[in-house]
């Protein structure tokens, strides 16, 4: 992992415009003097740590006293919270009492360390289930406490949700990524969709030379069209369906290339199994490249997306689908599965196409490759769509708005000086 210093707020001016930066500064002005604490369970790895590593320095740069605390635990704690994660996503998970006791006692231990800081804060944002019990372990808290759920909880396994709801319902508010994820709770449920960082290795503009390098690196033909899906090897991402779509489309575009780029699957038995299925489906087709890339190959993935003509994300189940956002940001039309948050991002004929089958994906690939002007037009629109809606600066604005709303009561309209 590269240990980069997080960019300051002004670094984003060229990407989003000075009006957006100025607005963030004005919102932040109203929060000067407030103490904000974020708490999660890991400093590195995973989407939550990635977003906090960006958001916290930006909030600090805007003059808000913001800190980021991480709770720690032993193996059993993480076994338990992994079970929560799976259960909240709808898998049947039965956690033994021993693991739940470890979960609670780990939170007690962490509360001993964090209590003074948390009880003194104006706003505490607790990310995901791992630190959720901290609220009842800080009885002298004076600020507003918010539970931020980054997980797709649209259809949770009920016993797991019932257990966690006991903690979550004590909060002043919660935040979900999509309206479909909201659950019956006795407090306001704010909606803040995720975002991408345009200055991160995964999304930053790359020199042409670096983009071209992936052709030789992976044996790709720069003169032939290319479709890319970036996803771990998981059945919900339907990589086999992507290969079926590719095979249907190659009848009309014989030189078409397909890149399926995913993470290494050594620690994930199911991932390894799916990878084998994908290899079997690809057979000996030399125009299909199946790439297992290391977790920090962000610039390589960035270059592959930029080198492609079309980005595909043919998921059959998806939370939000940040790889869709990344593809759109590279100015590529995205062919996306008609599910979850992909529907928020892929708008037929405007930013790409939603599909329900490999046949549908094949048809849209053929359409876009034959209609180069449409492909470029949709790609340009896709990029602007992300610029206005799904960049980190929008995410930050919504956090600031939420904090102002929390500190000014429940009125629908809050008039500041």
């Amino acid at each position, binding site marked *: 992992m590269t240990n980069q210093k997080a960019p300051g707020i002004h670094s984003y001016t060229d990407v989003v415009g*000075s*009006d*957006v930066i*100025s*607005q963030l500064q*004005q*919102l932040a002005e*109203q929060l000067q003097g407030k103490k904000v604490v974020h708490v999660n369970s890991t400093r590195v790895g995973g989407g939550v740590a990635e977003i906090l590593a960006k958001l916290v320095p930006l909030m600090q740069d805007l003059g808000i006293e913001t800190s980021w605390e991480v709770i720690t635990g032993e193996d059993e704690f993480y076994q338990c919270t992994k079970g929560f994660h799976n259960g909240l996503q709808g898998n049947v998970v039965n956690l033994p009492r021993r693991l739940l006791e470890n979960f609670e006692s780990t939170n007690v231990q962490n509360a001993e360390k964090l209590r003074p800081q948390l009880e003194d804060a104006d706003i505490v944002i607790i990310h995901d289930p791992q630190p959720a019990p901290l609220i009842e372990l800080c009885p002298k808290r004076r600020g507003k406490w918010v539970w931020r759920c980054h997980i797709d909880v*649209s259809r949770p396994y009920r016993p797991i949700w019932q257990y966690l709801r006991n903690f979550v319902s004590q909060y002043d508010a919660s935040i*979900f990524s999509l*309206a*479909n994820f*909201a*659950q*019956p*709770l006795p407090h*306001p*449920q*704010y*909606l*803040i*969709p995720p975002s991408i960082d345009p200055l991160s290795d995964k999304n930053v503009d790359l020199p042409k030379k670096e983009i071209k390098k992936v052709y030789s690196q992976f044996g790709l033909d720069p003169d032939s069209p290319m479709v890319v899906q970036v996803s771990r090897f998981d059945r919900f991402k339907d990589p086999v369906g992507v290969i079926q779509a590719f095979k249907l489309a190659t009848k009309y575009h014989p030189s078409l290339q397909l890149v399926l780029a995913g993470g290494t699957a050594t620690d994930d038995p199911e991932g390894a199994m799916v990878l084998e299925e994908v290899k079997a489906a690809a057979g000996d087709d030399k125009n299909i490249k199946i790439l297992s890339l290391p977790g920090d190959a962000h610039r390589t993935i960035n270059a592959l997306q930029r080198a492609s003509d079309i980005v595909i994300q043919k998921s059959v189940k998806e939370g939000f689908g940040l790889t869709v956002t990344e593809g759109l940001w590279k100015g590529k039309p995205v062919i996306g599965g008609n*599910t*979850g948050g992909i*529907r*928020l991002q892929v*708008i037929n004929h*405007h*930013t790409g196409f939603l599909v329900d089958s490999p046949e549908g994906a094949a048809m849209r690939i053929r359409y876009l490759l034959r209609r180069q002007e449409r492909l470029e037009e949709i790609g340009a629109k896709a990029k602007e*769509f992300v610029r*206005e*809606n*799904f960049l980190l600066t*929008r995410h930050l*604005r*919504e956090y*600031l*708005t*939420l904090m*102002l*709303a929390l500190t*000014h009561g*429940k*009125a*629908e*309209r*809050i*008039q*500041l*000086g």
Partner: protein
Amino acid sequence: MKNAQGVPNNKAQTGEECAPNNVFHVKDCALIAIATGRRAQNLREVRDILQTIDEGSIYYHFWGSRLQPRFDDPEYLNDFAAWAHRALRDGKAAERLGVIDPTAHSNLEELRQELIEAIETRLDEEEHVTWVKSDMQFNFLTSQIVVFDTHRIITDPSDLVQAVPAMSASSIFYHLIDARRRTLDGIDDFRSWLSGYGSPFGDRYQDLSEQIADIDPFFSSLSELRGELAAILSNYFKGVGK
């Protein structure tokens, strides 16, 4: 009396005047969406929920969602119509809901009644109610909106040429769209300042006001609206001078 935004239909009561003392105060706003937890899987459920849902939700689905991450749908002017088109695939319902003009109503209760009426008319026409899958339900949302002063003041209309392109998209929303539900005469803040009641400029800028009135705020994104307004101002002051 409250207008269709649910705020008192009187500038003096809102504390949101943009042109006190004959200067234009540039304001801005930021909005955060809130799930109400109420969802509908067909038009009948939408109608039933509409009977009792908080006015703030109706405001959100007609106006507030313009400030949310979403595609500015060029075809349908409110979330109900867009859902009828995309999820329900009911063209007639989408068209009837899409044509509802929120500015034609003096308050949100009237708007609610027109929505219910349009849905009931459509329900009467069909023998069967069409259902959508559970992950495509209509989620009734509401919002909190934070309005703040940018401390930027415009004293001369020609200064708008420089000021408008520098405004944030949400500031454009506030002055060009939100104002229609906030001002007594239902017009945007720019026209209100240039030619409205108590204008310091008399009818000097009537022509400019008419050009601004021609902007249809519903079929363009906020950035596009900013561009349209900036172009009108630039052309006007290039030709007329101060």
